[in-house]
């Protein structure tokens, strides 16, 4: 397999990504292009194969979202840990992961959020961590609350944490959301359900993990993130 750093990234696997035109998510209606997306005639170039390298020296990590409030944020303290891998299962080190979320009551510390739920002066809800040599990352936060969002009658977003990741090539750029196991709202959420492949959806749901859980302190969840791999898939290599 060609995995050199100038090897092109593989196309997304069919069904693994949501469509731009997601009928049940109203805001996509006027925001999705009608024309087909255009492929680069010669494939990926330096613009897609390379990416900004963010160093923690310049972009300090901020792994405890409860720290700015002196640990007094209201709600259920949790630990989230996982790995950043590529599609071949290899660790991706040095990935900058940006995180943001609502507070325990389901309200963002954001002027546009007018949900009638209390703000928490001890919780802002933004963080930044980097994957280590084994692709591992970890942060501490408060379990975010569900919130209403007016997409349809009685629409509520399931509990979720927003993730933004930068890989080694800009073609790997990923913004996603982590959900929580057992959330009854997942079944009704047009955003979660927009991704056609069932297994791909399931991988957006973190697992409860007793090994991440810290005794007498906080429950732990595990959430692995997979970035696009480089080079031909074994399937493509096997072609005559």
């Amino acid at each position, binding site marked *: 397999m060609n995995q050199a750093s100038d090897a092109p990234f593989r196309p997304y696997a069919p069904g693994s990504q949501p469509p731009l035109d997601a009928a049940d998510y109203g805001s996509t209606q006027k925001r999705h292009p009608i024309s087909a997306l255009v492929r680069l005639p010669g494939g990926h170039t330096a613009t897609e194969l390379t990416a900004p390298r963010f160093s923690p020296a310049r972009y300090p990590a901020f792994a405890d979202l409860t720290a700015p409030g002196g640990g007094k944020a209201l709600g259920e303290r949790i630990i989230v840990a996982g790995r950043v891998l590529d599609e*071949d299962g290899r660790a991706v080190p040095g990935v900058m992961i940006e995180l943001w979320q609502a507070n325990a009551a389901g309200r963002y510390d954001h002027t546009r959020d007018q949900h009638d739920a209390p703000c928490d002066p001890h919780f802002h809800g933004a963080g930044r961590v980097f994957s280590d040599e084994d692709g591992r990352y970890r942060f501490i936060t408060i379990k975010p609350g569900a919130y209403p969002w007016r997409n349809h009658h009685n629409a509520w977003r399931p509990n979720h944490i927003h993730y933004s990741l930068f890989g080694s090539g800009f073609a790997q750029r990923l913004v996603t959301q982590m959900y929580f196991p057992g959330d009854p709202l997942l079944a009704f959420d047009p955003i979660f359900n927009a991704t056609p492949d069932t297994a791909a959806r399931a991988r957006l749901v973190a697992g409860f993990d007793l090994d991440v859980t810290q005794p007498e302190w906080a429950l732990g969840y595990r959430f692995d993130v997979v970035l696009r791999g480089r080079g031909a898939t074994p399937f493509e290599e096997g072609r005559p």
Partner: protein
Amino acid sequence: MPAATASQTIGPYWHLLEDPSWADLTRLGAVGERIALIGNITDGDGVPVSDACVELWQASPPASADWDGFGRAATDVEGNFRFVTLKPGPVPGPPGANALQAPHGAITLFARGLMIHLQTRVYFEGEALNKQDPLLASLEPARQATLVARPEGERDGLPSWRLDIRLQGVGETVFLDI
């Protein structure tokens, strides 16, 4: 092994991440031909997209201690964004191909209503290499024009280039399947 993790919308509250200084790609002290890249983003009804996260990534000039080549800007209530950056130079073509691409930057859009980011490019009017750029050459002229920024003269002390972005409908921007 599983496929890449599914994208999910950035939503309306991504500003919790925002650092407005990131809209200036020269913020780390890079020296060169500084320009402003401005634009307006509208949806299929011509309504301003006022909650977008716009990212600009340039492989040229190459990264250095004072230049990441990366910036991020929020659109304002009227759908406007503004970056300060260095004008890019030519970028090598695909590995193995002996061709240069015209100077360009990658523009990535995230917003409420975008389940996965939209990717496009900004080229610059008047560049000699535009004629032979593989992507531009593959597009009919009207579609090509949606990727080419035009000079707007000096604004706020910098030579300014404009690239408006239309998400849908008449004049729809060319978006890329990267």
